[in-house]
């Protein structure tokens, strides 16, 4: 990437693999379990978090020298909550159907520990541009896991992708269903997401043993 220095580029690249917020930092697990039953929700959530984390990181970074350390967590919380409410209100006024889709995510974004985690760990100690990159990188890393989990859960649980039937019709018994295949109802309930995330963590650590923690 010629656009970014090597150090800056790593801010984007690291969270995608060796410092992934979900599989390595184990942040943002709750929303990863809650909304990954379908691919569309995963993508929407990833984009929403990218916006909030990108902008929020910049705001916190801009205020980093004047935030009183005693109440910094409260300040961070207010910044996230304000951002999310502003976005929600603007969407309600100008893109109503989209805001209906997003409404359920609003609460989940505010409580997403990745956001508070990055504010606390990065934006409070770094400049605007680097904080912005860190926000985008971490939300991409979060998003990619969401999409992978959403892909498998929707495919195996409902036989669809983005709502389109890709394996045939389970009721009319066409496609794969005609040879006896059945949807796995377990995949659409949240514990299945935990198992899928677990498998991802396993695959990732067996490919790169350096990530395995020493006891």
């Amino acid at each position, binding site marked *: 990437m010629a656009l970014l220095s090597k150090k800056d580029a790593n801010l984007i690249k690291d969270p995608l693999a060796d410092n992934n917020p979900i599989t390595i930092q184990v942040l943002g697990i709750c929303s990863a379990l809650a909304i990954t039953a379908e691919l569309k929700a995963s993508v929407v959530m990833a984009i929403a978090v990218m916006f909030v984390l990108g902008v929020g990181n910049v705001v916190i970074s801009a205020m980093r*020298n004047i935030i009183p350390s005693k109440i910094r967590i409260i*300040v961070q919380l207010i910044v996230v909550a304000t951002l999310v409410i*502003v976005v929600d209100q603007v969407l309600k*006024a100008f893109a109503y159907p989209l805001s209906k889709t997003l409404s*359920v995510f609003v609460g989940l974004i505010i409580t997403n520990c990745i956001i508070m985690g990055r504010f606390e760990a990065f934006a409070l100690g770094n400049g605007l541009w680097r904080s912005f990159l860190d926000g985008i990188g971490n939300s991409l890393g979060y998003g990619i896991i969401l999409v992978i989990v959403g892909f498998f859960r929707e495919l195996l649980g409902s036989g669809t992708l983005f*709502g389109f039937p890709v394996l045939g019709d389970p009721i009319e018994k066409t496609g794969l269903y005609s040879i006896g295949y059945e949807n796995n109802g377990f995949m659409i309930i949240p514990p299945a997401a935990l198992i899928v995330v677990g498998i991802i963590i396993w695959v990732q650590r067996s490919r790169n043993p350096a990530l395995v923690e020493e006891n």
Partner: protein
Amino acid sequence: MAINTDKNVYTVVFASVMVVVVGSILAFLATGLSGRINENMRFEKQQNILYAMGVNENADEGSVNFVPTDEVESEFSQYITEQIVIKGDEVVENKEAYLIDMKKQLALAKKGQTPELPLFIGEKEGKKFYVIPMYGKGLWDDIWGYIALDSEMVVQGVFFDHKGETPGLGANINQRYFMDDFSGESIMDGTKYAGINVAKGNNDPLNNDKDDNEVDALAGATITGNGVAAMIKETVNLYKDYLQTIRTN
């Protein structure tokens, strides 16, 4: 100049300024946008009512398509011939009955007071529809909807929506494959106003049996489904005195 951000005075001042700034931003935004937001909500109600009585742009592919926002007002006045409010034995016409908040009315009914119950009478292709608004509780938050009946108390169409049900599970109550199942079901069981149950394992996933007061539930959304069934039952119960006067079978 370095500021000592650890001082108590500074902390208090910072917190106060922050509250004022954030408060003003949100207040400014809320008042500035409330006109547009209210209008969007009004259109949405009209779209939902029309959707339940079958005035929509649904095609075969299975997604929910409302009447477009810019046409909804004229379509609404065209198809909804009468809006009435039922208060005890009193029935009055009210052009803005669709704006009545069902949540408040249900709360009144629970307290033993007489609620004001809106009902929309629509006409499409010579057939009369009675559209009733509903309100209830899902797993996480409120759910609501509209149910369109004909004079034989057979469901002609429904619309459900929710505030915060789980995406991919309970949130699917606003999908065609769930809502379409209700059409053709009767809310009557003999002469009893029974409502419609959202049943698990009724061995009728295609919903061929239209006389069983049951539709097939959504997998993984038991509580939301039960909420839908309870909501229909409660609503039908509230309206049954009036429904009795229009029932023809």
